[in-house]
């Protein structure tokens, strides 16, 4: 089964794309978007771990014997809403930075701080 780990690999690649955006790109909004990608890759990783082959959604019903693991679902469900609140906090910081420095590019902000 060569594709048995494919979901994990894709999650890792997505995570690295997010990390690359955070490190390499100077625009603060782009950095926040990179963090969102990073976050979503973790969600994908958790949810893939919870899947059982042949299982069904963890809502009890007649005639279904095997269910996927409900624990990652409960964790990620709250993490998504917490994630959007923290993203909103980061975005409000960006708005304040834009008001103070007149720019949201990392390099310009640093140049203003040094001068």
């Amino acid at each position, binding site marked *: 089964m060569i*594709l*048995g*780990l494919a*979901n*994990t690999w894709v999650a*890792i*690649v*997505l995570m*690295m*794309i*997010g*990390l*690359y*955006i955070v*490190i*390499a*790109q100077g*625009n603060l*909004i*782009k950095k926040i*978007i990179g963090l*969102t990608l990073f976050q*979503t890759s973790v*969600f*994908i990783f958790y*949810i*893939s*771990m*919870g*899947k*059982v082959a042949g*299982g*069904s*959604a*963890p*809502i*009890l019903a007649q005639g279904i014997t095997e*269910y*996927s*693991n*409900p*624990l990652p*679902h409960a964790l990620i*469900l*709250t993490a*998504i*809403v*917490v994630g*959007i*609140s923290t993203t909103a*906090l980061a*975005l*409000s910081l*960006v*708005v304040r930075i*834009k008001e103070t420095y*007149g720019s*949201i590019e*990392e390099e310009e902000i640093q140049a*203003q701080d040094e001068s």
Partner: protein
Amino acid sequence: MINFVLLALLLIVAVGIMRLQDLFAVTMLLSIYGLMSATFFVAMDAVDVAFTEASVGAGISTLLLLVVISFTGRAERKTRHKPYVALFVVTVIGMLLLYGTSDMPYFGSSDAPIHNHVAPRYINDSMREIGVPNIVTSVLASYRAFDTFGEVVVIFTAGIAVLGLLSVSSKALSNSQPLNRPRGLYQQHIVIRIVAKILLPFIFLFALYVQFHGDFGPGGGFQAGVIFAAAFILYAMTFGLDAATAVVKPAVIELIAAVGVLLYGSVGIATLLSGGNFFDYDYLLADPIAGQHLGILLIELGVGLTVTCVMVMICFGFSLRRKAHEQKAVMNISERGPK
């Protein structure tokens, strides 16, 4: 098989997000990314998660990013330094993580460690102990209620922090003259106004259904809260911010957000006082199952109230800031001058 197609699409969209310079296009791609990942969650049986990701990833987060981009402009400048260091760091970390996956259990194998500790108890005993068909709800609201309490408090704190960073004095807003620039959607687009009027009662009703049907199907306080907030924001967008703040004052929204957290916490205190552990709903009523039902109902209500009000609070915070900006725009530009 479906999951591989969806993962491939997700990868393509992520690469697009990395490559594009236009922040508006990136936001649109992020919205697509949210839709795709939510579909992936459906294919992975995580219907509750898909519910949340659909309303958050495609709805609220797109909206917040758009508001902020309307502050800051949509063009991203090219970074001047070469990204070799970042590329190096990312490659090394990625390789290490990929090496780490060689010990992971294969996708979908039912004897993986994750499926062998607490999960069988949740799946086999939750109907007897909690009496709710949706296992995710019983894990979220009963077995791990303390954990969820912490997360609700985090959401509430984030809401307060956003308010602290973005709030503008209401005097500054009301004293200044209303601008007579061409107003937004609510005066020009009569079609949107009528369709929104038709849809809004339906969305509110549907949010209530999601809130109270969460025990039996996908849904619950988090999802319902986000849908409620989205409906309210739709109202604010189509009829104007003033109309929306006339319906519910921002102060009332802040109050209700706090009431939600308090309601959640006081259910825990009530279980303590009636002789159980913190969030042990068995002791709320004489019949343990009825106690569990009451406890889950109350804390889902608390979660719903807090999430709705925090989301509305955040969006109003950004919109009011933007409005104050537009009124001061001329002054600011002349103040700042060329650097």
